[in-house]
């Protein structure tokens, strides 16, 4: 299997705190990859390092065989990586349709000139892609509503649809099930599995074991910034170091 993402001794220090400490791993193309760990383990920081939001203190990120360390966020996005945020960042004062269109237009590209003249083909492509994603997450009838007026669960799907509108090769989801009840979580698990089946590589962060154990093909466990396990879910579940991290922590 080809490797799509490779982390090489990634480290990020905040003041004296090693939020991510010498983490190396590989993600294969088409994999549904889980990252778990107790609160404050460094999961979000690791995602920020991968997507370019935070520069690493040391180490290297390689995406599709090329180093992307130090590239600006928008350039990394153009290489085919898209992400959602733990604290849900939709554009509140824009409609659902317009939110998703931003994901599409970032990749398709717009300019002031294309807005004035000759941009019809692009506009059609953006519009079609946005409708396709709206349909995919079942938000079609909300197209015209302000994102701020959607329920929390729908906003979560909106954020995923916006990320999908970029047609990424790697989708990074930071705690998509946070704040959802059991049945909503099960529905989301199904949605993510179906996405993965279309061939999309997905990295999924969760701090609960539940969701990831059921659907991920491989898991990395972080504790205090360090990688303590990297294996299939069945093995990780029995790993003494993992049990210790979860039982020993406040979880």
């Amino acid at each position, binding site marked *: 299997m080809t490797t799509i993402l490779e982390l090489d001794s990634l480290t990020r220090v905040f003041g004296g705190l090693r939020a991510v400490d010498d983490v190396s791993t590989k993600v294969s193309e088409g994999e549904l990859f889980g990252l778990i760990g107790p609160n404050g383990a460094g999961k979000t920081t690791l995602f920020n390092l991968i997507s370019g939001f935070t520069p690493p203190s040391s180490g290297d990120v390689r995406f599709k065989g090329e180093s992307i360390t130090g590239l600006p966020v928008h350039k990394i996005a153009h290489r085919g990586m898209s992400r959602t945020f733990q604290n849900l960042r939709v554009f509140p004062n824009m409609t659902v349709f*317009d939110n998703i269109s931003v994901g599409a237009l970032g990749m398709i590209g717009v300019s002031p000139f294309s807005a004035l003249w000759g*941009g019809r083909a692009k506009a059609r492509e953006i519009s079609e892609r946005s409708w396709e994603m709206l349909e995919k997450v079942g938000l079609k009838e909300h197209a015209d509503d302000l994102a701020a007026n959607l329920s929390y669960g729908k906003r979560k799907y909106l954020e995923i649809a916006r990320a999908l509108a970029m047609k990424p090769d790697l989708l990074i989801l930071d705690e998509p099930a946070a704040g959802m009840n059991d049945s909503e979580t099960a529905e989301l698990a199904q949605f993510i599995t179906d996405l993965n089946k279309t061939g999309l590589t997905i990295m999924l962060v969760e701090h609960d074991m539940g969701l990831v154990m059921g659907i991920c093909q491989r898991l990395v466990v972080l504790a205090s910034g360090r990688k303590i396990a990297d294996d299939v879910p069945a093995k990780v579940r029995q790993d003494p170091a993992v049990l210790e991290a979860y039982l020993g922590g406040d979880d």
Partner: protein
Amino acid sequence: MSKPLFIKLLLLVIVFAVVPFALEGLGKGYYYQIATLAFVFMLLAASLHLVTGVAGLLHLGHASLYGVGAYVAALLGSKYGIGFTYGLPLAGIGAAFVAFLVALPTMRLMSIYFAVATLGIGQMLFLVFQNWVDVTNGPNGVMLFDGIDLFGYAINSELGIYYVVAVVAAVSILILNRLSHSYYGNALRSLREDDQCTAAMGINVTVMKIQAFVISAFFAGIAGALWAYTTGYISPNDFNFSQSILILTMVVVGGLGSLPGVLIGALLLILLPEVLRYFGDIRNIIVGLLMFGAILFLPKGLFGEVNALNFARRILGSAWSEDNSEKGIGWK
């Protein structure tokens, strides 16, 4: 006739037939001046709207870029004999160029720091107008008696000048309308909402902000040239901080993010003081109270963004209507 076409025609008829007819009837230069002033400020407000209303950057120095355009037009006309035909676009380009130079270092600044930086830009340019006496003639201002010369035709009548101003302002506003009501406008709006998140969508945030700032300055420069050519005299105080605040007030009272609202706001703030002339100095207090009330009771402005977007998409018909977008959502 479809509804969008009807509304567009109605607006055209008002601007190009009803208003000039009324102005001719009133037959006084004073009313023509007010009409010109209204167009200039509608264009200023519409151009600031792109930066502040759509892209969400609080810009406190817009009048200074308007001033750059006015000085470029007036100086080219009075000192170098370059008339309106070339003076108008050059005024826009001059203002855009100055904006580009100051934008490079400022655009990475966040929110309040950006606002303070634009305040500084405004003050700096004002001081240049005021003190670079050799070029700008300092506080004495610049006279421009050339009249409007359009591709060799001298336009002298008040009605003719009205038409020139109306056409230039209308075309400029239409372009700004296109920019804010398109997918490009969506990208600008997303900057306002969350620019870090916008970057994660593959959009170069800094470039987008510079573009919006420069385009906005271009049209402010055009407004400056219209002003210089129609009043025949400009001085630094036409472009000081209080003018920047006046334009910003038009944008906020009309409805941040809403172009039709912003145009209504500009009209109101130009016409109201004239209508209230009868009240003498109290009129400024009345205008102030009305503005205060408008913001208290209509915090989204006279015509909020959501209504404006619906208006543009459904009523003006700028929506993309394909089979899959049965609701007429999306932009052409």
